């Protein structure tokens, strides 16, 4: 490893390409943390947003008028506002209204941290799109199929879980893919409320070492890699779920 570090140090001296994230142990460690944090934030938000989408789409089909209105209100609120504004609103406005607990420095700290608010706002933001994506899948399930399930004695929840959702999922997977890819990219916004993900770390590194082009390039490739991995997994899943004779 030491030879590799030395080589990158030499690269900086010889060409001016300054990749401190390789040879400087402090920068390396914080960039690794940033990378892990981005993956963690993406996976958690991915999971929550899909759950929100599935539950939201089910509630949207509820026979109760007010449940439907509530879900639609949520979608309008989160789909129509920029995620950065949501993040600031959650962290600085709602965050200060939270109950407080005393931390080890004797300070009354609000209970939800910047991590919590980032996860909440990103999940609800992507979730609002997911609800609509799942609805598009649900509406593509033939009415006759639903009626057949009802005829077999399935109640509404059972019909949704065993019949409608499995078919709907296959229809809406391409759209869901798109939205989840967007979600991974949107996690960069968490830098605004000091969640130490990759953009946040890169920003601090290029302020310290003035190696902006190198860090920008690194960020670009890191996201190409991360999103590429996600797309690969999703495509694999899409293929494994294909039903002969259903959909395209």
């Amino acid at each position, binding site marked *: 490893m030491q030879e590799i570090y030395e080589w990158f140090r030499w690269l900086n001296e010889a060409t001016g390409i300054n990749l401190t994230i390789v040879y400087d142990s*402090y920068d390396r460690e914080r960039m690794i943390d940033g990378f892990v944090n981005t993956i963690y934030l993406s996976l958690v938000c991915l999971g929550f947003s899909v759950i929100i989408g599935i539950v939201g789409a089910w509630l949207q089909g509820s026979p109760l008028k007010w449940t439907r209105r509530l879900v639609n209100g949520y979608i309008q609120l989160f789909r129509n506002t920029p995620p950065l504004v949501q993040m600031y609103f959650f962290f*600085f406005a709602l*965050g*200060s209204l939270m109950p*407080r607990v005393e*931390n080890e*420095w*004797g*300070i*009354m*700290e*609000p209970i939800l*941290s*910047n991590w919590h608010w980032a996860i909440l706002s990103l999940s609800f933001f992507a979730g609002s799109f997911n609800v609509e994506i799942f609805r598009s899948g649900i509406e593509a399930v033939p009415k006759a199929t639903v009626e057949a399930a009802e005829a077999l004695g399935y109640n509404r929840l059972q019909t949704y879980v065993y019949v409608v959702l499995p078919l709907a999922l296959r229809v809406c997977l391409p759209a869901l893919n798109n939205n989840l890819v967007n979600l991974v990219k949107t996690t960069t916004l968490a*830098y*605004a*409320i*000091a969640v130490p993900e990759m953009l*946040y770390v890169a*920003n*601090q590194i290029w*302020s*310290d070492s003035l190696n902006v082009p190198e860090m920008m390039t690194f960020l670009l490739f890191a996201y190409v890699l991360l999103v590429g991995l996600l797309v690969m997994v999703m495509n694999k899943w899409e293929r494994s779920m294909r039903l002969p004779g259903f959909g395209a």
Partner: protein
Amino acid sequence: MKTRILAAATALAASFAVGAPATADTLQNVMQSGTLTVGVKADYKPYGYLDSDGNIVGIEPDLAQDVADTLGVELELVAVVASNRMQFLDQGKIDVMIATMTDTAERREVVNILNPDYYSSGTNIMARKSTDFETWDDLEGAPVCGVQGAFYNRKTSQEFGAEIVGFTGTSEALNALRQGRCAAFVYDDSFLNSRLQEDQWSDYNMPLETIDDAPWGVAVKHGEDAMARFMSGMVVHWHTTGQIVELEKKYGIDPVPFTRKMHERYRGYIPEAKK
């Protein structure tokens, strides 16, 4: 008294003289016209700011007044900002600049920044009085708010073990500090000083020793050697008498280590004026 100070200032200035003959002479013009024009900040409390009547007041305007009094002329203050202050000096809009300017090698090429420096700002933290930080090492493991891109963030976390929570601007960081999301806020001590004067921050203080000091210099135009010598003498005079320390107290901030140190160093140096 006035003439004694003037004599003392010029006598001290002589020790900084470079020997070049004074030519196009701002100092002479000032004496003839009876008005000294000084560029100061008007947006940097308490160094230079507008009072409720719209007058420029603060530590630097007071220093400028002292210069005018010493010369026995009227003072005219011109508000400058970082992006125009050196140009104003160069164009002759102001005779002297005392405007929170950090003394750097690059700037010394543009204007004549005088020795010695008159002030200095560095890095410190702002924290609740109840938190009881005494040394930088006490920050170990503590969440400390900062502003993204500030050079001392790395030092604060790498050397002192603090967990930097970096926001995009000072207002977000201060908001987070007030919400109790961090134990302290690390930033320029001069900025923190000015915030601490406000009532809303009365429960907070700046408990640590300032580090990474960068000095501020008084500047005149290149080639104005008589003015430069005279102003150098004024700065030495301020350090000798402890006038800047007094002004800091007058405007309600703790004297920064630099002014205290300079006063210690120059104290007892007041030469007798020649009769």
